[in-house]
């Protein structure tokens, strides 16, 4: 599906630019997108190096394992495909907690570490496993307690009560996360049935 979305965005973009007689926009947009992407990756280097170092200490001292044990029933229910003592569990929980507390910087490296650990259990490294899809669903639905970026932006534009949207945002993010979990379950069952 990503293949089609990708192709669709590029081809429809080029057709749209050509139809409006401003085809030169395409080259500029492409190069601009590429340089933005590299800038994002460069920005990620420091965050990844730092957090992966800290998390290694947590892993070596068995802290991650302990943390995973605390919430084991919940995570086992969400990720039935991962053995209970697998290091992926600790990283998954760290990723979810970091998201909840708005530590977006920390959430990404932990999520990637969780993916790496899950990749070790994957029989086909080019294809995602259902557990990977579940973790992705939790992250794309953007579960968070306080939307810090938006509050900052509202302040900048002179809102009389920048934090008034915390309640509505919390409601909406819970709905989208719940939808993500249910949809993920539904598609996973369908996928597993098709594989039989």
């Amino acid at each position, binding site marked *: *599906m990503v293949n089609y979305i990708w192709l669709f*965005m*590029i081809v429809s*973009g080029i*057709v*749209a630019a050509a139809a*409006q007689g401003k085809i030169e926009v*395409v080259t*500029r*947009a492409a190069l*601009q997108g*590429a340089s*933005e992407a*590299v800038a994002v*990756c*460069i920005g990620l*280097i420091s965050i*990844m*190096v*730092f*957090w*992966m170092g*800290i998390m*290694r*200490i947590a*892993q*070596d*001292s068995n802290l991650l394992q302990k943390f995973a044990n605390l919430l084991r029933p919940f995570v086992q229910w969400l990720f039935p495909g991962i053995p209970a003592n697998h290091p992926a569990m600790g990283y998954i929980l760290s990723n979810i907690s970091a998201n909840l507390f708005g*530590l977006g910087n920390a959430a990404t*490296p932990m999520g*990637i570490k969780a*993916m*790496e650990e899950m*990749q070790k259990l994957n029989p086909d*490294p080019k294809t*995602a496993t259902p557990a*990977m*899809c579940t973790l*992705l*669903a939790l992250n794309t*639905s*953007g579960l968070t*307690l*306080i939307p810090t*970026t*938006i509050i900052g932006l509202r302040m900048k534009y002179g*809102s*009389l*009560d920048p934090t008034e949207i915390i309640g*509505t*945002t919390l409601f909406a*993010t819970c*709905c*989208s996360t*719940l*939808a*993500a979990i249910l949809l*993920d379950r539904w*598609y996973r069952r*369908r996928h597993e049935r098709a594989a039989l």
Partner: protein
Amino acid sequence: MFSIIGLLSKWMLPAILAFIPLYGAFRKVPVYESFIEGAKEGFPTAIALIPHLVGMMVAVSIFRESGALHFFLQGLAPLLSWFGFPEEVLPLSLLRPISGAGSLAFVESIYRTYGPDSFVGRLASTMQGSTDTTLFVLTVYFGAVGIRRSLYAVKVGFLADFAGFLASWLIVSMVFG
């Protein structure tokens, strides 16, 4: 309530930063060497993301800058405004899942035009804050480990975003409407 959560967020990071190495030392882990061992993996992981992210962001950039995105939004607008969804915020529902920077810029334009405390301003805030950029998260998380086939993950991500937008509209109408 907010001040407690705010305080918690501010203290969370320093607390974690103190606790993890202290616990490690207590467990006789050579903390600094352990940190370096783990940190080594950060660089190649970030670099491995470049091709994935370049590919995706080039496509998003062409789609947005060429006016194709605008064109599809205009096609969608009558359909959604028929349900009563405010037309001003409509582009956000298409922009939010594909471009984080683009959707944030759009929210800013809503604030500038209508003010952050208007109904559309509050709705845009809630929509922006309640979900993440699905396409970006997918590219980064799967790209980092070299996953090419994402099964049903894209569908789940987009449908959950849609559920989040409907929930935002519902709750903002109820609370501020």
